[in-house]
């Protein structure tokens, strides 16, 4: 019995699944190559006609624009390259601080959302619904408008605490005046953090080996409080403050947060925090009720149960979606351009408008964010793997 009639020649190629797949893919490849080719030729012709030189040579030219806030020293006569670095650092600053607070808000919000206290859970539910259902850009505009329209001008600044001023120009607060010992205190703090992590690791290993559980908090106090205080006292315990002073049109001295930065932070943290809270809630709900009951019959309090039994288990459910929220916050920080915070997109946009290097600028933006995204998901994947169920065989 013959199921399918024998095909001859070319037809045989078409009816063989393997060669058909190959033909299909070659056709697709040709199509992609043609489309890309046409686009590239068109672009080249258009660029030639408009006399735009392609390439990244413009990066070493003088930027010629000011950037309102910068982590490194930057002047308008520096190169575009340096301006873009300032932008990258500003984006990084927003990404790190923003994600820290958004995750914190997410954990607190998620737990409060599930609180047995009706009022508390309702308040957080309303916040979550409100924040998630309004576009982020609109929220940013709103917070920025609150700064520029509701808060008073510099001369009539609000002064809620001595030395702290709030006005249209942002937040101003005192910082310790410059003294030669402060860098050493900072170093001591950094060393303290490392030592704390080390002792936590050491205690955990000992617990796993011997079952003896010793508290961590004495070490934390010694390394993070006592050690820096000793260094500070050793340097003569300087306690002068650098208080912001009103002079001319703005404050000088002290530390300041610009309205752009605060509005961006508020918007990003409140928006992403709401999504994070829902993720944390779903994670907690994914832990079966039996775990709660078992923990409570062991005599653990509700808080202990949450901290020791439920949260560690729910991390497995929480981490993957939380990773995409971390990435979302990084990508959404690009909306800073809408309210004038000088993040990478804003600087690249200015560069693009000044030099006309549209393709290069857009490519730069894409590459930088791809780099951020890929690095973050790489790190989060490692963390995620460490949280997965360990099956011992």
């Amino acid at each position, binding site marked *: 019995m013959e199921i399918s009639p024998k095909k001859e020649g070319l037809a045989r190629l078409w009816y063989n699944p393997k060669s058909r797949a190959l033909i299909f893919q070659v056709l*697709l490849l040709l199509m992609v190559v043609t489309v890309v080719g046409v686009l590239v030729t068109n672009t080249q*012709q258009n660029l030639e006609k408009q006399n735009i030189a392609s390439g990244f040579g413009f990066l070493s030219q003088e930027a010629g624009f000011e950037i309102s806030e910068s982590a490194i020293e930057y002047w308008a006569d520096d190169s575009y390259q340096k301006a873009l670095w300032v932008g990258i650092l500003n984006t990084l600053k927003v990404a790190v601080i923003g994600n820290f607070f958004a995750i914190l808000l997410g954990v607190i919000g998620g737990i409060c959302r599930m609180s047995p206290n009706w009022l508390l859970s309702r308040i957080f539910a309303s916040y979550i619904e409100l924040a*998630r259902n*309004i576009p982020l850009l609109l929220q940013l505009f709103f917070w920025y408008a609150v700064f520029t329209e509701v808060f008073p001008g510099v001369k009539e600044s609000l002064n809620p605490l001595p030395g702290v001023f709030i006005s249209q120009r942002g937040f101003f607060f005192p910082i310790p005046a410059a003294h030669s010992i402060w860098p050493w205190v900072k170093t001591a703090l950094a060393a303290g953090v490392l030592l704390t992590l080390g002792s936590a690791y050491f205690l955990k290993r000992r617990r796993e080996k011997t079952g003896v559980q010793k508290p961590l908090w004495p070490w934390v106090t010694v390394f993070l409080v006592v050690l820096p205080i000793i260094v500070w006292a050793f340097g003569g315990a300087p306690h002068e403050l650098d208080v912001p002073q009103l002079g001319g049109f703005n404050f000088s001295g002290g530390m300041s947060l610009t309205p752009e930065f605060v509005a961006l932070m508020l918007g990003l943290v409140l928006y992403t925090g709401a999504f994070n809270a829902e993720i944390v809630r779903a994670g907690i709900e994914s832990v079966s009720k039996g775990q709660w009951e078992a923990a409570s019959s062991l005599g653990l309090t509700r808080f202990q149960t949450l901290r020791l039994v439920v949260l560690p288990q729910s991390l497995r459910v929480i981490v993957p979606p939380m990773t995409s929220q971390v990435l979302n916050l990084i990508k959404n920080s*690009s909306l800073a351009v*809408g309210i004038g915070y000088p993040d990478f997109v804003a600087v690249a946009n200015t560069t693009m408008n000044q030099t006309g290097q549209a393709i290069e600028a857009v490519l730069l933006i894409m590459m930088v964010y*791809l780099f951020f995204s890929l690095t973050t998901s790489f790190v989060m994947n490692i963390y995620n793997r460490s949280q997965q169920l360990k099956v011992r065989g």
Partner: protein
Amino acid sequence: MEGLARWMKKNLFSTPLNSAVSLVLIGVLFQALGPLFDWLFLKATWEGTAQTCRHGEGACLVFIKEKFIFILFGFYPREHLWRPILSIILFVSMSFYSRKPERWTRRTLWRWLKLCLLIVFLMKGGFFGFEEVSIDKWGGLPLTLMLSFIGLVFSYPIGILLALGRTGHLPFVKAISVGYIELIRGVPMISLLFMASVMFPLFLPEGIVLPKLLRAQTAIIMFMSAYMAEVVRGGLSAVGKGQYEAADALGLNYWQKMLKIILPQALKIVIPPTVNTAIGMFKDTSLVVIIALSDLLMTTKTSLKDPKWLGFSVEAYLFVSLIYFIFCFSMSRYSRQLEEEFHYGGRL
């Protein structure tokens, strides 16, 4: 009354800690919401001019009264306003009609097609004695709805194709799909909109000029497709392996297997996340503000630039927030309702 007391005891004052939390929260709520309520309603200025608003202590609702037509419809000619209004009413009622899964039939699809043609005809005009209104006059809510609806309609099938490419076994197709999806999901939407506004014109041969609106729409579709693809991929992997094997055993070829067996199940599983992606996209259309297209958010910003009415941003933003909220919230409620229906209905 006793019921209320019992309810309060159980939900607000069950333990000393809970009682303390409740009391603090009640205090905070009164402190915060009281002035807000005063500002928004009791002390608000309902009548008058910008000058009366500036003297008043509360919100300037006169501004909203003055500007809401512009915020909602942009530069659409005032004498033809009934056309976008009717379009939105038709669009919303058709969406409401198609909310029930049992109405997702070919007939409903035809009705949608006819409705879209009717809406385009209404908005654009130009024949049967309707005066023509050029596309660059469209703005506000109709534009926002259009950008998201057309974005959804196009990105859904493209997303399905990308997901099939990614899960399939043709190495080159797979590479292209994975590359596209990961690239798009790794960059912010703004970069795509920049691309649409400054790079697309360079891609096209000389003499062909695409309007900015169309370029932005393309960017939105490109962006949304990648996210749709990931949603659909989730559905494809949620369909049991036995279904794939059974289809193979029946001797179905790839497209028969996918179109008749796998996709109908996969797409149904992922309806709730699909709606959520659609909500995200509806919110993200507001980003076209950055490239100065007159969507709902842009008309709001434009209305704030009127020199007679400077300084009422908070009122204006609260007003548009309410509009966005109504749309997004009802969609997310709908998504949750579908989820429950599919979850407990045992229809899968």
